[in-house]
């Protein structure tokens, strides 16, 4: 493969509860145009994410120009998506979609500081499209799987430590930045999957 073509950033899968905890952002070079990453607490960098959930509410919160906020809900929490004049397609999707609806959002994590001094994480969408329930269910299982992979890798890195293997760079970074108990994220994965199984049972009944 040619080295010159810049590789596209992978779209990470994370549930809303973990995504909203990813308040630490960083760049990997001093270049002004270097990609910005949010650090997921389970130990991965995310420049882009792909999420599927229920769009429950849209609101134009702009003052001078249109600035749309959409609430996209998954089994663990809510992704806040903001789209304005620089994301015209996403903004018009938020303007025109009748809620509730299942939507797929591809976008970039962004953080902002609230008046109270808290760091909030939001999603700046590249695209928002209406999808069906099957797509949403697939995303839940896939996101559960990817999240578990990260937790496993994180635990591996932590338990091996020292000289056994180089601990994963982002796991180490997450440990330093958040010092979180990952069992919380595992429990969310379990709850999300159980929720899915229940709806399947209900649907079959």
């Amino acid at each position, binding site marked *: *493969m040619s080295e010159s073509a810049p590789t596209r950033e992978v779209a990470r899968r994370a549930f809303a509860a973990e995504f909203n905890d990813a308040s630490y952002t960083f760049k990997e070079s001093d270049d002004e145009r270097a990609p910005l990453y949010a650090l997921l607490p389970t130990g991965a960098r995310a420049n882009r994410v792909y999420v599927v959930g229920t769009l429950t509410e849209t609101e134009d919160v702009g003052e001078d120009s249109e600035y749309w906020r959409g609430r996209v809900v998954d089994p663990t929490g809510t992704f806040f998506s903001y789209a304005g004049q620089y994301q015209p397609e996403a903004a018009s999707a938020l303007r025109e979609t009748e809620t509730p609806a299942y939507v*797929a959002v*591809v976008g970039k994590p962004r953080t902002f500081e609230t008046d109270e001094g808290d760091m909030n994480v939001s999603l700046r969408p590249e695209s928002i*499209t209406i999808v069906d329930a099957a797509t949403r269910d*697939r995303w839940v299982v*896939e996101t559960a*799987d*990817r999240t*578990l992979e990260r937790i496993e890798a994180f635990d591996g890195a932590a338990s091996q430590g020292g000289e056994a293997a180089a601990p994963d760079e982002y796991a180490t970074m997450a440990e330093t930045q958040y010092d979180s108990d990952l069992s919380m994220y595992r429990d969310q994965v379990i709850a999300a999957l159980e929720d899915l199984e229940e709806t399947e049972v209900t649907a079959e009944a």
Partner: protein
Amino acid sequence: MTDLRQHAVEVDEQFSDELDVGVDEIEERLETLVSDYRVPIEEARRSVVSTYLDEADMEREQLSDGDQAAEVADIDEPEEWLDLTAKVVELWEPRADSIAQVGLLGDETGTVKFTKWAKSDLSELEEDGVYRLGNLVTDEYEGRFSVKLNSTTTIEAIDEEIEVGDDATEVEGAMVDIQSGSGLIKRCPDEDCTRVLQNGRCSEHGEVDGEFDLRIKGVLDDGGEVHEVIFDQEATEALTGIGLEEAQEMAKDALDTEVVVEEMRETILGRYYRVTGPTLGRYVLANETETLEEAPDAEDVLIKARSL
């Protein structure tokens, strides 16, 4: 062996098919330049090579650089000179008089399109024949690589069977992006060209009356890997339900071709697909596309989660 001798041997090899020079003569010329005229060895070699290029009436690109044996899967750059030992998998009907033969070559690692120019005056390749092909040059078009046989190419039929590799790959993931140049496009009408026009212009043939075509350049992402996928007209229609005629109608009504890709975006962005097809450069060419509608089984993942 001295450095000079080594260089002389290499230069001799480069011209072995064209000129019968001899290592001694080459070494002597190098010696004169290096010792008498204090020319650095690389420059001396360049100068000697130029002399023989003139003598053989060759272009520098045509020089073999000694060992350039390659496999089909290695081909990832245009304008590289290489040798292939390959089987003629298919011969196609040439679309122009300038082409003597065109088709598909294959080895264990995959297949690649080849073109043999009429003016190169080379011997005929036979379907299913296995050949050692010397000094081919690679070419690229929209991420697809091919090899060209040219007047310096050597063809040697060999008595060997090659098990041609299946280079089809299967990728799946969510369609996270549709790249520019997708939807209703226009291609250059020139037989050998078919380049996609930008604002009615072909980068090779200038302003032309383009021919409409449908195409999608999409990105499939599974959360771990990213794959770029090209859907041709047939695959695009199967994927989006929009055929070429309908697309042209849509564009005519809206006075804008962009409406087509906008509509396609709404249909396919954010959905999951599995695509099978050959890899062409950075792209997977969609031969088969499957929409992933069944939700996968949550049970296995749940068991894993509980065990952590």
